[in-house]
């Protein structure tokens, strides 16, 4: 044991005030829903945090009507610069209440406080700042001289980055003049409900943002509501396909941000220490609950032993445990269901003959936990090389030539992200140009910025979020307009 064991450094939860129950945020007010309530928990301890209303189809109808009214009477008539002011105001309030958001996110999601504090919350505020600037400059975005909003947008977001995904959705929608009905993920509603309070604090006109909590049925009611003009969804490919089938034949627009099985390609001339950090960040960031995770590691065969030795050494230093401790690197799995899915796929890896190695660590007895794990000896034919695990499990494969690396990286139904590690600029560009992935990171991984478009090829989704490309998804262009 190291003589320099870090003493517990827990973030205080005193800053958050969690109500014993929450209603639905419709037309600027919290109301009791027509549906039943369900419990939301802290996945690190299984402690019940609050009771959440399950939105019914009647509630969704109420929310869509509020959004339509706000769109027709207020938001579409407001000068664009005024819209921008609201976004700036929201962004500033999010920064002022950053600690509150970070603590609440960690409590409800299980991610380490270091990540929610240093990544999720600052990026979420940055998305509002960035889009606030666009609000009165849309005619200069290269999307036609007078691009028009869709109207009422239905948005469904996942549990892996609850607040950040909310801001990826809500900020561009509001900046472009749409009004919103948002359904947060079933297991992580709390920061969205705090965001509802921020909307009130910012004086946002009632009905511009409506938040209806619930599970799959609530989301389905939102997708099928006839008065919703556009659907924006982030989540699994399975649900994404169901949404696509549902809206076929309607006039609804749709953007989908779905699953991935990102390849992280390590060439033999890679900057080795930083590559190891990048591999760790690629798959163990946010417990691997990242759609663009670098979950397939492709190592050039002539250096693969050295890379793996360094990787195991680095992984043995990961600090797994209490997400509220400021020194924790890897937190809790978000739900029992997700833990079951990870365990099932990892067992398939064992059965198919891959070799498992995990960070030696003591896992807490309460809550949902999975030790950071790598599988070596994985081939393209293994399930763990093909299916999205969405957990802290890395599949390691090797390649011999750059062409083989490209072939293997692209040999997947997904196409969301990829990473390339090499000290040679020409090889980096050559590789990036051939990867069929929406985002290619060079000598880094899991970096996000509101100015940079994000989205997938193939089964990883339709459309882009962020940057100028992301604005296009919320504006009618050409014949649509």
């Amino acid at each position, binding site marked *: 044991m*190291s*003589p*320099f*064991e*870090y*003493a*517990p*450094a827990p973030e205080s939860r005193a800053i958050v005030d969690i109500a014993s129950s929450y209603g639905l945020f419709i037309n600027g007010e919290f109301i009791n829903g027509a549906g039943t309530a369900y419990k939301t928990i802290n996945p690190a301890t299984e402690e019940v945090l609050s009771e959440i209303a399950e939105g019914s189809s009647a509630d969704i109808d109420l929310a869509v009507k509020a959004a339509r009214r706000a769109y027709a009477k207020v938001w579409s008539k407001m000068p664009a610069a005024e819209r921008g002011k609201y976004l700036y105001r929201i962004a500033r309030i999010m920064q002022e209440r950053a600690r509150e958001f970070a603590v609440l996110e960690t409590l409800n999601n299980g991610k380490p406080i*270091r990540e929610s504090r*240093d990544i999720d919350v600052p990026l979420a505020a940055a998305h509002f700042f960035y889009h606030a600037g666009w609000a009165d400059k849309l005619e200069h975005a290269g999307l036609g001289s007078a691009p028009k909003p869709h109207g009422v947008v239905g948005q469904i977001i996942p549990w892996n980055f609850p607040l950040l995904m909310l801001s990826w959705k809500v900020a561009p929608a509001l900046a472009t003049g749409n009004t919103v009905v948002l359904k947060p993920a079933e297991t992580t509603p709390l920061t969205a409900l705090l965001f509802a309070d921020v909307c009130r604090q910012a004086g946002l006109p009632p009905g511009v943002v409506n938040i209806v909590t619930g599970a799959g049925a609530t989301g389905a009611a939102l997708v099928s509501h006839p008065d919703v003009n556009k659907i924006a969804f982030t989540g699994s490919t399975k649900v994404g396909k169901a949404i696509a089938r549902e809206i076929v034949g309607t006039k609804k627009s749709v953007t989908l941000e779905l699953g991935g099985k990102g390849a992280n390609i390590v060439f033999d*001339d*890679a*900057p*080795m*220490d*930083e*590559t190891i*950090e*990048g591999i760790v960040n690629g798959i163990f960031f946010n417990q691997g609950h990242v759609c663009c995770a670098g979950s397939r590691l492709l190592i050039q065969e002539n250096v693969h*032993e*050295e890379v793996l*030795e360094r990787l195991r050494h680095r992984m043995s*230093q990961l600090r797994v445990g209490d997400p509220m401790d*400021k*020194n924790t690197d890897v937190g809790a799995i978000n739900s029992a269901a997700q833990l079951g899915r990870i365990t099932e796929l990892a067992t398939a890896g064992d059965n198919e003959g891959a070799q498992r190695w995990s960070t030696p660590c003591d896992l807490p007895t309460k809550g949902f936990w999975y030790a950071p794990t790598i599988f070596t000896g994985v081939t393209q034919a293994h399930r763990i090389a093909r299916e999205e695990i969405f957990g802290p499990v890395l599949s390691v494969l090797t390649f011999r030539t750059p062409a083989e690396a490209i072939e293997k990286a692209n040999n997947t139904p997904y196409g969301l992200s990829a990473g390339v590690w090499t*000290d040679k600029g020409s090889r980096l560009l050559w590789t990036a140009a051939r990867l069929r992935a929406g985002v290619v990171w060079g*000598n*880094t991984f899991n970096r996000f910025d509101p100015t940079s478009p994000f989205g997938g090829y193939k089964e990883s989704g339709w459309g882009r979020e962020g940057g100028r490309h992301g604005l296009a998804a919320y504006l009618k262009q050409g014949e649509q307009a």
Partner: protein
Amino acid sequence: MSAILTRTALLRSTDHDAIKQFVLALPAVDQVGAEGRAAMLATRSIKTSSKVYAIDKAISMIDLTTLEGADTQGKVRALCAKAVRPDPTDSTAPSVAAVCVYNDLVGIAREHLDSIGGQNVAVAAVTTAFPSGRASMAVKLQDTRDAISAGASEIDMVIDRGAFLSGNYGKVFDEISAIKEVCGDGEKRAHLKVILETGELVTYDNVRRASWLAMLAGADFIKTSTGKISPAATPPVVLVMLESVRDFYAKTGTRVGVKAAGGIRTAKDAIKQLVLVNETTGSDWLDPTLFRIGASALLNDLLLQRQKLSTGHYSGPNYVTLD
């Protein structure tokens, strides 16, 4: 990894071409990645019992330094007294590792330390025409011999940055080897710290190359800076040097120390350095024989924090002694 090799077996030959080939084949450092890793480790939150440990550990790792033209015997005596007993009101505060002075003040430092019970505090001398290193080899060797005969048990030499930057790695290697020879061998040798002056090498690739050159030529320690050039011991520079000693140990079984010198002024900075050590080389290096901090003002901030931890409140600058 490959089998353990001796320091000399790693280099097939000390021929200048072979040295250059070796150094240029080292893995690259990605600047953004290295700085990102150092920044992430800077967020570690060291509290309560671990803070107590870190503060005393940091004090025991200090090379308490004065390297001014205005240094006098009186100034050096005062420094020695502080080195042995940093906090006159609290005898539980550990002594520092060494005092670090110019060549001509080594004798008085050793004599005074011995006379006040500071036999366990080493005297380190900066030599080889410190800080620029611009002198003939004969002068650099004599500079080092002088320091050792006056009682220095640690030699802080500078490398020839001009030779390094012009690609003459062989010359740098030969100079370090020659000084190492003067320092002697075995238990009683003078410990050799090789100052890379990373602020003049500028890139992290250069820091890694210079680290390996020094280790291959026999350095006991690799040291960031003279303290005369800024930037000095920045966290990413120390990180890259720690990675180098970690890799060198894996290949040779020899543990080389790291000395971070220059720009570390607060207890917080020092604790960040200890976190870098803990999470890069591992805790074996959390020892004055393998990690040092070259500083002067730092000691007082560590003492203030130490008093705060034991009494529960902050005192002020009048409750710690002037150097």
